């Protein structure tokens, strides 16, 4: 439960009220997996779980981890205000990440909604760093408006590659937007993957994930090939405080990434 003191090296704006902190952890050997999260403390304010959104330029002296924060509450707002050199508390990494090993040899469909792209970004880095191991890679990304698109320059760079399909859609836009308009689920039917040999990674608001899963099943994916990242209140992150219960699971211990067939009944229930 004791955080270590970490330091912000850089801070980059990634959208309205969204900031990516490049944090020097003060450690050198902590392995992280795509989809895991850390508990970040703004001293004097509080602690929140934040997914890893990438790896920074680690040195021999210290590891660097990226966290993308939307300033929505007192703690996340305080974290988003931190600048280079500022101290913060860090515990982690925690949780079960994306099934990168299970994805090998298969088509990979990644569906992200809003800030849900952040925890998927390390998975994309992982896929692209070892591109030959996987089949078709598709990213379907939906946001509210063109201004909310995260990691825009990186998405544009990826789009120039010929070995990844990227489609972006927004809920509403002005006339300057020439891309898709509509919810992200509408993109699933046009994506290019072999449902017999594909795996889907989904992260976004719960309602978006529910509809996305329906679309993926309609496209022929079976329930045991769909993975989602579940969000619940977290305090301890080590399975002791009871906050992140999701039916029989503890999200910090058994998730946040869970296979759909294991939480199918829960996702259909309200207020669970």
């Amino acid at each position, binding site marked *: *439960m*004791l*955080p*270590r*003191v970490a330091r912000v090296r850089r801070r980059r704006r990634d959208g309205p009220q969204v900031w990516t902190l490049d944090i020097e952890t003060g450690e050198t050997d902590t392995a992280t997996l795509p989809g895991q999260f850390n508990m970040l*403390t703004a*001293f*004097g*304010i*509080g*602690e929140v779980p934040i997914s890893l959104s990438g790896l920074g330029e680690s040195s021999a002296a210290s590891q660097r981890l990226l966290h993308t924060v*939307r300033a*929505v*509450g007192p703690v*996340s707002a305080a974290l988003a205000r931190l600048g280079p*050199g*500022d*101290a913060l*508390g860090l515990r982690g990494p925690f949780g079960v990440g994306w099934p990168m090993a299970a994805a090998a040899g298969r088509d990979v469909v990644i569906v992200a909604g809003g800030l849900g792209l952040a925890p998927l970004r390390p998975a994309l880095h992982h896929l692209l760093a070892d591109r030959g191991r996987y089949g078709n890679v598709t990213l379907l990304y939906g946001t509210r408006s063109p201004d909310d698109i995260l990691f825009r320059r990186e998405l544009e760079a990826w789009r120039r590659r010929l070995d990844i399909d990227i489609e972006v859609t927004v809920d509403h836009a002005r006339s300057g937007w020439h891309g898709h308009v509509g919810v992200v689920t509408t993109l699933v039917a046009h994506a290019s993957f072999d449902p017999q040999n594909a795996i889907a990674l989904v992260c976004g608001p719960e309602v978006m994930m529910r509809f996305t899963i329906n679309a993926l099943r309609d496209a022929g994916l079976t329930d045991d090939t769909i993975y989602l990242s579940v*969000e*619940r*209140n977290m*305090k*301890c992150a*080590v*399975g*002791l*405080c*009871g*906050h992140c*219960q999701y*039916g*029989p*699971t*503890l999200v910090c*211990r058994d998730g946040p990434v869970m296979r759909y067939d294991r939480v*199918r*009944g*829960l*996702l*259909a*229930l*309200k*207020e*669970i």
Partner: protein
Amino acid sequence: MALSRQSVLTVDGLDALIGKLRERGYRVIGPSVRDHAIVYDDIGDVADLPRGWTDEQDAGQYRLRRRDDDALFGYVVGPQSWKKYLHPPHVALWRARRTGKDVRIEPAPEPTERLALLGVRSCELHAIAIQDRVLLSGAHVDPGYRARREAAFIVAVNCGVTGGTCFCVSMRTGPKVDAGADIALTEIVTAGERVFVLETGSDKGAALLADLPHRWASAAEIAEAKAVVARAAAAMGRDLAADDVPELLLRNLEHPRWDDVAQRCLTCGNCTMVCPTCFCTTVEDTSSLDGTETARTQRWDSCFTMDFSYIHGGSVRTSSRSRYRQWMTHKLATWHQQFGTSGCVGCGRCITWCPVGIDITEEVRAIRAGSRAEGDRHGD
């Protein structure tokens, strides 16, 4: 509990037991009358015990009443449980001090106090064992709980009376102490004298007994001790037939009874505070006015609050229906999947201390009455 040869302590012998524990550096905690209830508090000698008192309990009701004898343990359980001491309501975790851009974190010292818990009932031993499962058996353990737990000396007492809300027999958690105590006592009257038939359950317990004035128990005394507990078991009025309950509840997550109980439940959280197994905690950060010092404290939390399930944008469980369902399905069903045990020991506290008298055994019966068919789990 591996039974030792049984001995007999007089009331003076019990006083000596308390004294010897204190001599050995234990802080002795036991039952005491305060604010018209039997609570767990510091015990100096037998005079601090609730001599001649009993408790009358029913759904939403608790009253102390004078007994017509001088029994020291002639009550059942009060509003508090031993988690108050082993898993305390407030625990300091760390402090941080900031000097310029430099921050130093100091962990709170681990507890060094050695507790002797006197008067622990069988259901409460099972509750402690459940908290051990939750807080000590996973990949991460609660270090403060471990320190307090490992240092603790437990003197259990077999129940000679049954409370109005008890259902330990149906949960197979009592009333006879079967494991987890260093010493177990049964209060009986023999030849007109009030005495305690004593068994030891550990080397620590046996070593303490060797320092106490005692004699071997007679066959009649052993038989009477057994009969006392058997009478308590036979008198139990409530039951929660437990074996199929996990499956029953998980099959009925949309049962209309959840709406019914939501009409009565005040979401006050009393049941979670008095429950001897409810373990949920949250953390609070406080800081000095100038912001240079910060401290993090862990404190008990309750799944009946809105904050408990808050994620940005709002709480997951806003209705009282969903919060009662979360509490009860966790306690009786999903606890099994999470920790390999039920979260209920049948102590009846949640029934007694519910201000509107909601009875968990009654709610299970109502769900059973209008249950969906087996194999028809919701959402599958």
